[in-house]
């Protein structure tokens, strides 16, 4: 299948590369299937491109790469529906907001995407602990 995307032109979709979301990205209930796109020639480098809606894509980043103190503690029940035994086997990504004003580039550390790359299932999880900022600014020192 060929997807005519808003940002990346024509992208070919291979079934085995499609990631299925067991819980949606909040507000996008009808879009449960995504491709993880990596392109080092652009910023941001990683994107979740919706398969259901070619116009929809979210830039993502590893929260550990933007905040060296980031860590999350999940209970096994949180991992059940994406078929994971341990968080060590997951890829954790957070959504980025990339507005025109570059100093406002931020990522949401409160609602990480937990992704099981082996089974190709993922979900957005909202953490209860308020210590995780919804607006974590990536470039400057606006967080401090």
């Amino acid at each position: 299948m060929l997807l005519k995307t808003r940002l990346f032109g024509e992208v070919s979709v291979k079934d085995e590369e499609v990631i299925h979301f067991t819980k949606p990205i909040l507000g996008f209930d009808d879009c449960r299937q995504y491709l993880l796109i990596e392109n080092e020639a652009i910023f941001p480098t990683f994107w979740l491109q919706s398969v259901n809606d070619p116009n929809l894509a979210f830039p993502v980043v590893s929260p550990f790469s933007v905040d060296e103190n980031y860590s999350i503690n999940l209970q096994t029940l949180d991992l059940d529906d994406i078929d994971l035994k341990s968080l060590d086997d997951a890829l954790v990504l957070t959504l980025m907001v990339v507005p025109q004003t570059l100093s406002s580039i931020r990522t949401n550390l409160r609602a990480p995407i937990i992704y099981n790359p082996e089974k190709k299932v993922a979900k957005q999880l909202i953490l209860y602990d308020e210590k995780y900022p919804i607006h974590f600014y990536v470039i400057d020192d606006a967080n401090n």
Partner: protein
Amino acid sequence: MLILTRKLGESIIIDDNVQISVIEINKNNIKIGVNAPRDLPIYREEVYLKIKEENAQASSSGIIDFVDFASSTLEV
């Protein structure tokens, strides 16, 4: 909206598996306890709305030209 009056310690039951109890009442806030299946997401409304809005903002992000990006990073 269905409106029910409850006293301290009383509950309401929703659909067999969700129990919402009044745990504590103070002047300006009420502590509510929720017993529900673990896979049922429960959010504070303002957090729910904020995350929904932030997700929507993320979806309108664009790709940044590396030249712009490098010069802006140097400025900060």
